[in-house]
């Protein structure tokens, strides 16, 4: 429900610049926004409770030292405030529950599983990949990263390095996929556009046509056949 089939969005502010975005995120409607918000809140709660559990495990060990007490709440953006919060939470109900759980789960199980959970809640819901074509400059592929921790990886290929843009087909499991590749001069490996989503052939073909029309000046003649 949160994701859809990869679909194409095109931004073309001028005829010489076009950005093709293939994304699994559906159009934002009100219910969807609400759902995303709930998802975000849930992830935050799960993440915080995992952190609390980890802290309680640490507090049970011999390395921990008693938390200093604060008569009044310190300023918000300080480490003191974090300690103050922890001091508040530990004797409360969830804090006690976490302490009880932490005393039952051995560290060997707790540590990997909580790391796994933390990694899972940091995973992005949607994958977005884009191709930006700038006449006279080159093309740029971009792939959104797996987690929220890092930004998208981009690769810019200047036009004088582009040897060709082709649609190719390949076996993947039990299916045949069409994919767009950029052949770069002087490099052994081709650059695959939309490498994670590998959208359907119609999308690939329209992007291919659009990219070639946009990239080269029109006096070049008709497009060649696809490879």
């Amino acid at each position, binding site marked *: 429900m949160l994701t859809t089939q990869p679909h194409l969005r095109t931004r073309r*502010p001028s005829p010489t610049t076009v950005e093709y975005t293939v994304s699994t995120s559906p159009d934002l409607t009100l219910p969807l926004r609400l759902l995303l918000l709930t998802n975000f809140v849930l992830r935050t709660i799960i993440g915080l409770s995992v952190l609390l559990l980890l802290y309680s495990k640490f507090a049970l060990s011999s390395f921990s030292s008693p938390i200093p007490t604060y008569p009044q709440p310190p300023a918000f953006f300080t480490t003191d405030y974090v300690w103050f919060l922890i001091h508040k939470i530990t004797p409360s109900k969830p804090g006690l529950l976490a302490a009880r759980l932490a005393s039952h789960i051995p560290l060997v199980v707790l540590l990997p599983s909580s790391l796994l959970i933390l990694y899972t809640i940091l995973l992005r819901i949607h994958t977005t990949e884009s191709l930006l074509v*700038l*006449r006279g*400059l080159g093309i*740029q592929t971009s792939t959104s990263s797996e987690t929220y921790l890092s930004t998208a990886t*981009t690769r810019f290929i200047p036009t*004088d390095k582009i040897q060709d843009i082709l649609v190719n087909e390949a076996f993947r499991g039990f299916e045949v996929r069409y994919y767009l590749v950029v052949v770069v001069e002087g490099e052994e490996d081709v650059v695959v556009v939309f490498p994670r989503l590998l959208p359907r052939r119609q999308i690939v073909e329209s992007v291919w046509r659009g990219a070639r029309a946009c990239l080269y*000046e029109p006096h070049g003649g008709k497009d060649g056949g696809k490879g």
Partner: protein
Amino acid sequence: MPEHDGLMRVFWPLDAPRTDSPGIIVGWRNSGLDVFVVAILEDVDARNVENALKIGTLFRNASHPIERIYQLCGQSSMHVLGLANTPEADVEPLQMHATTGPGLREPQISCARAATIQIIMFERPLPNRMQYISLDPISLALGDQAEKTVHAPGSVDAEEEKEEMRNKERKRALVEKLKLHTVIKHPRSQKELALSRIVNQINCSWELHKLLQQNISLVGTRSRRSLSVSERVVESATSMRDFVVMAILQLITVYIYPTVRRAFIIGLLGHRVAAEALLLVLEWRARPDYAALKDISATAQQVEIRLQQFCYWPMQYVTLRKRKDDWESVTTSHADYIRFYNSLWLVANDVIIGIALGSYIIDNSAWVAESISGVLSTYSIAALQRTISWLMDWPAGLKLNNELAAFLGDLFLWVIDHWSSCIETLRPALPHLIWFIGFSSFAGASMPIAVFSDLVSILTIHIYSFYMASARIFNWQYTILISLFQLFRGKKHNVLRKRIDSCDYDLDQLLLGTILFTLLFFLLPTVVVFYLTFACSRMAIICLKAILDTLLACLNHFPLFALMLRIKDSQRLPGGIRFELRDTQQFASPSDNALPTSYIYLKSVPLTFRAMFQQYFQLGHRIRNHYLSPRVLWCLATGQFVPPIHRKNLYSLQYSMLPARRAGIWDMWNALVKTPPKQKQKPSGWEGRANGNGRRLNGNGRRYMHH
């Protein structure tokens, strides 16, 4: 005009003023409709600016020759590109009108010739902070000879090398084939070819902008008023003080500084000569294909790396000093700068850690020696003895051949006994040795690690020889079994044709061969058990040494400085560029006949962490290829000798920071002595400035800029 499509490309700096006052846009014109905005000059007349650009008035008082900038940017002059915020004024058809304002985040541009417009906004990199952009990722390794060391064919790794070459060849053929798919070759337009120049223009733009803004007053028609009497008094007083200071400084620069400098150079050179002598010893080979001292011993290798670094530093420093004689926008030496300070920092770190480690070892030398000898005797002698006795006595219920096991076991036990008595006689010397190791660590923590690595190889030499011996026995038995098995089947191996042929054996041959085959086959498990034991212990030692080598690699090569730069100011480590298409709807002007315009932000991509540790990945890949390949497993299984990975391959990581050929003593002398002219310019520079001060009295001063 080569452009048919009427695409106008404008590079626009993000820090251009966002006021609505009129101005003149000045910059580079790369080709007809491809322009690069450097500055917007306000309160001046367009014709004056054009003239000033031609004569060079705007480039006065430049710290370095302006021709260098022209050469970098690939243009012969700057031009007036258009007008800002004066829509009613007439301009030439190729010039543009720009509208900026406090409310507009992006400028709006129109041009008579253009049909569509790309506005590429960029942030000027600050050259005084050594920021720059580049199309290719900055290379932290000294690239040119890294390749060469990889491919130096060690005779041991010849097969791997061949395999790799074959793979490369296959891939290259595929790439050649891929080229055939391209039907139409598109001719490159001028805009496409300008990209590398534009990168330089972006890098130079900050300094140029500063220069233009400094000289803007020279273009205007403002008249200078003459100085008042009190101002003249102040001027002459300051110039008097300047004169006295100058005289003292001159005394220092003329008499004291050169002497100190000369002494320092001579000291450096003496050091260099000593280093050269030591290096010659370390690199001496009896014959070209024999191993040198540095190939055998980790300590020698470590000393060699340090000496090479000491030899390289003065050269590096001299090249870095040359940076000062050029515009700060020239970015060719930034990677050198990072390499130089990285290696300095690593050595400093190494020494600091080494001092801590060394003082600890020296303080506790008795305890350290005791524990080391304890560990050694436990693991390399007692444990081995116990294992061998266990093997002689039907290990794990395995019924081995008693006589052979007793023979082999006794053989190994005698050698171990002898070896342990040797070690016992050496034991009193161990505390001294430990003290020596501790002392050596004042030269850096890498030193004791290297010495320890060598110590491990010396003290486990008996395991190495056991492994060799048992592998040899096992391998003989294996090959004999193979050939006897062929005999058993009535075949034989044809050496000339490299195939199995049928063969008619005589009866006695067959009988004897079969008996021998059975005999050897039943003796095989006994030999295998011994072989496996020693092979495992050998592998354990190789692993230990690999860990020590990795530690050494970390101490010698860790990209610490680059990592810090990446965190502090990632613009200094460019890893390429990226573009970001901005939405134009929200900026669309109410005026209807605006040209279709796309706003693009150009940003620098910082170097990825993966690229920073690229060399470590390469090293890991090489080690994996060497030790986890099927070939090595096959060697292990058949008892052939597993060659240790060649030191050259392992250490290419560390040598990637050093040039392949070190500069000779004479080169170094030349490089060091050649700098004084530039240093000696200083006095004349001071005089120049004094003159300048003097002339400033007259009104139109021509000052020299100094950093």
